[in-house]
């Protein structure tokens, strides 16, 4: 009945991979463990023999500019991400989303690596990363590789990663350029089983008249997260006025099948909220895009 038999704290990626692959029983990497430990404890995750704590591996704790990218280490606590001037500037949506994960105590241990590996279709941090062209660095005993974030999901709660032999090192997000911005928001339903009904992240590039490019991620909009490309398409090349917003809202209706779930929300309500959130995040991002304050 123990949640784990062995808890190891490696100090390098190689050591972590070695612990994972040489464990005498099922092994899993663990970041803050805020989801994983409860799932094991409550019987929603198969038993684990060895937990490999990745939160003391220097490479996973980096948060810095690397060339044309912002690198966020997979084990950086989300509180640090929320408060980081670098993230707030280059990836405002990620800072906003991380500020909404759990409560303050949870944010001191929760990590984006865990958030993404957990593969829930509406995880706030993960959805915010989706709005950027985030590349995820993954390590296994074959070395390291980069994969676009949308390739990491198999189904609700099912990661495409092999978590018994590989770990997420971190996330590469493009640095913010002139005219670019991002925003994140969500709506909770406090009644009964409290769960977010819907969240939305947007990344945008505009000039003084129109949206040049836009990425929109909505969670939960299916078993695996995806970008709302048809909605984006309605907005590109247009100002965010009522006409194009109306077209974008119609595109949500045409391209996304929200589910009704008894404990969270009906599909009709979700659809409505998706319109409200769309206006909100686009409005915020549009405003922000010209606020190029210094870091």
């Amino acid at each position: 009945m123990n949640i784990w038999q062995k808890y190891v704290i490696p100090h390098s990626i190689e050591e972590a991979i070695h612990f994972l692959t040489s464990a005498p029983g099922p092994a899993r990497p663990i970041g803050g463990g805020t989801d994983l430990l409860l799932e094991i404890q409550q019987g929603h995750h198969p038993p684990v023999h060895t937990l490999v704590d990745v939160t003391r591996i220097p490479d996973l704790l980096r948060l810095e500019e690397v060339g044309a990218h912002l690198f966020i280490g997979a084990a950086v606590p989300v509180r640090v991400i929320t408060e980081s001037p670098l993230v707030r500037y280059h990836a405002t949506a990620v800072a906003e989303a991380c500020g909404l994960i759990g409560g303050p105590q949870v944010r001191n241990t929760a990590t984006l690596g865990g958030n993404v590996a957990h593969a829930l279709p509406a995880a706030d941090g993960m959805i915010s990363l989706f709005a950027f062209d985030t590349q995820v660095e993954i390590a296994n005993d074959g070395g390291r590789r980069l994969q676009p974030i949308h390739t990491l999901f198999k189904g609700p709660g099912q990661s495409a990663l092999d978590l018994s032999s590989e770990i997420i090192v971190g996330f590469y997000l493009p640095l913010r350029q002139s005219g670019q911005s991002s925003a994140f928001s969500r709506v909770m339903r406090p009644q009964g089983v409290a769960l977010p009904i819907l969240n939305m992240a947007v990344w945008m590039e505009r000039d003084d008249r129109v949206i040049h490019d836009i990425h929109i991620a909505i969670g939960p909009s299916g078993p695996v997260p995806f970008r709302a490309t048809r909605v984006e398409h309605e907005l590109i090349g247009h100002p965010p006025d009522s006409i194009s917003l109306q077209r974008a809202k119609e595109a949500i209706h045409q391209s996304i099948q929200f589910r009704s779930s008894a404990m969270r929300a009906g599909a009709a309500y979700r659809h409505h909220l998706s319109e409200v959130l769309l206006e909100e995040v686009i409005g915020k991002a549009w405003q922000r895009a010209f606020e190029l304050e210094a870091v």
Partner: protein
Amino acid sequence: MSDPNLITLTVNGRTYQLPEVPGEMLADLLRYRLKLTGTKVACGEAECGACTVILNGEPVLSCSFPAAKADGADILTIEGLSDLHKTPTADGQLIPLHPLQQSFIEYGAVQCGFCIPGQIMTSYALLERNPDPSEEDIKYALKDTLCRCAGYPSIIGAIKAAAFTLKTGQPLPHPPIDPSNHAGRVVGRIQPRPDAIAKVTGKAIYTDDIQFENMLHARVKRAGVPSGILRKLNIEKARKLPGVVAVLTAKDIPGEKNHGLVIPDWPIMVGIDEQIRTVGDALAIVAAETRQIASKALDLIEVEIEPLPVIDHPVKAIQDDAIRIHKNGNLLKHIKVRKGDVEEGFAQADVVLEHTYHTPMHDHAFMEPECSIARLTPEGRMEIYVGSQIPYSDRNQVARALGVPEEQVRIIGQLIGGGFGGKEDIAGQIHAALLARATGRPVKLLFDRQESLIVHPKRHATQIRVKVGAKKDGTLTAVETELFGDTGAYASLGEKVLTRATTHSSGPYEIPNVKADCYAMYTNNPPAGAFRGFGVMQSAFAIESMMDTLAEVLHMDPVELRKKNALKVGSITNTGQVLRESVGLMECIERVEAEMNRLSGGNPFIPKPVEGAPHRLRAWGFAVGYKNTGLGGGAPDKAGAEVELRRDGTFQVRSSSAELGQGLPTVLQLIAAEELNQNPRQIDVLLMDTDLTPDGGPTTASRQTFVTGNAVRHAARALRQLLTSELAERYDVPPQEIRFIEGLAQVNGKQVSLSHLAEQMLESGRQPLASYTYWAPATRPLGQGGDMHFAFSFAAQAAEVEVNTLTGEVNVLRLIIANDVGTAINPLGLRGQIEGGAIMGIGHALTENFIVEQGRVITDRLARYRMPSITLTPEIIPIVVEHPVTEGPFGAKGVGEIVLIPTIPAITNAIYHAVGVRFDRIPVDQEKILLTLKERSGNY
């Protein structure tokens, strides 16, 4: 890690090296290995923040933080906090507590105390990063640090006060709380709780903080299905598991097989071929060397259950073809109220309205999960350490199960981390005792949160049909109600709760014709029992919603309609009771109305858009309520207490009455201090021990201030007379020349120390002790007219809400709360009750919903059962109305429940006034608001 099997960590400045234990969380290491039990575990699922400690400068949740991960860390727990900083006083002294600890005490933020270490540590982390936090900063930082006593406004005030002191070095600013209008020398004045220091330093001991040598850990095998027949139960594999010491089943119970507060209908364990009635039914109990082993043993118990149909609603339970949940059928009780002739009343009415309302089950969600420790003494008596609302009932029920005389059992009550009615029934007391008896070793049975949510009785879910008739001028001519109450699988206090729901179902109004019928039904849902408000919360939601609708139909102001019909002195209630005094309802209504008009600038019931955000609409709602004090209905209502002068010159007050956080020790301390003319600090209060304290009766029905308060008052008076006559005789002076002052008696101008007096009396073989059994005024059973209750508390509340018409989200912004409490004996504790009741009301209105589907509990985690967090805290404007009761101690009557009752309809009425969406069930569903608004605008 130098040695992979050792954890090195520094806690409160001391460094430890400990062997690693697989699966161990930091909270367990701190609590059980380092004995730092100030850190509490309330949920075990990273939801509530009670276990917060500071790790390398940041707050983390130690209940879900692997101990091994803390290797190398520097940890601060509540026990280490007072070493860091002291609190300056006005006279230049230093109180040896951190300003946060001292401010939590002075602001009354400490109630049951279970969450307090987590609150203080989280606040400490906040102030370290932000020395001058705004209210918003505080709410953000404490978002996930839950308090069910819910003194959130006091917590906010305490944090701001501590921040001020830390910043300026000045003493703490005083809390803004007024004394009673009828304050005496100490009664009615601000007095910190006697147990507050222990609670802010982590030294307060709750049951799970106790460890005995050689102690075993118990767990219970539960049915997991809501309805069926237990056909097979194989415990052999479990018994053989190394570390398992005993596995017991129904056939191992030496005495009575059932327990129950009123009707013994609840099996201690379900036997073979016996009926399973709810998912939480116990089938077998295990004691093992560790909790882990006991848990593993549960999985090895093989169970075969033949399923039966599930009755999941009281209306289904009453059908003729429904299966019988109990031998005598599914009707626990048909409760009737009759006054006048409703048909005639409806015939006289200009308007007749009828509607049906629904309320769900609620969980008490007290922060401290149930825990019992049973231990056989060398003399063979059974001792039970437990936080229980009715210690003498526990003793009786444990003794009957063991088949021993009651004197062979001693209940040693521990601090209770919240109760709210949920710790009146047996939880693990009997199971722990059976295992202690079988093994000869101490046995601890601690519920985890999931078990707590599934097993203990809930608030009754109800369906309430209300039919009202009124004249054009608003005069009520008749009210008819029909209630179906879901008492779940077992009776518990169901009959009494639903009687209260029924008698209060026409509201605090004088109505010539009343008819109320309630069907208290058994179902296969978890049992329902006592919960703050005791049925009246449910019926108040129904009648107060209906009154608002009636006001609208009559084109009347909702406040005027209530004034028109409000009970006053001389009124006859629907049960035929003439109210002779202490009916402060009209004053509550008028004062809340005046404040509401002032704050709203007039027209409180007209929606107003927020400037710059026209999609946010604000409006006020109004509701009233009343609630009996005491058991009533003809039940003998008495409490015993004794007061003793001890050798050291201090006094001890003793009663078995329970302290759940509501502040009874302060109340009793103040009453005794007033009567004995002593400083409250000279009075020690001992509660909840069936060997040492006389029976105070159940702590329920808002009765303890009145009943035990009176017992203590009379006992203190008797002791004073005893001491006076002793001194009169000894010094040969007339009794009227003897006075008591702090620690001293003044005899004819000469001072005699009380310790000396105690010594002298004891030497001459006389006990400086007086006891008193107080019998509350007799009441009469329902249906017989006369006084069904000896006192009622009254209340009015107004709520201002803001509804976001884009999302349907609702926020409560302000609550004006007036309660007629007779006399406010303990204003600091009263403030806690008012705040906590209001926040619980907000929870019931907006967030809480105990969801059961086909008898299975969906909300079986704290993450799923949403009690309100500090983020929902509105501005609370309390108004204390004092219409004393002649018979009450210093005029006081109960307050613990009335505080919650009008909050819910005040909020739902406000939502109606803001956006025109009427809720006939709670919690409010924001989705319904939004979809209704869209439909109405033709947008859908």
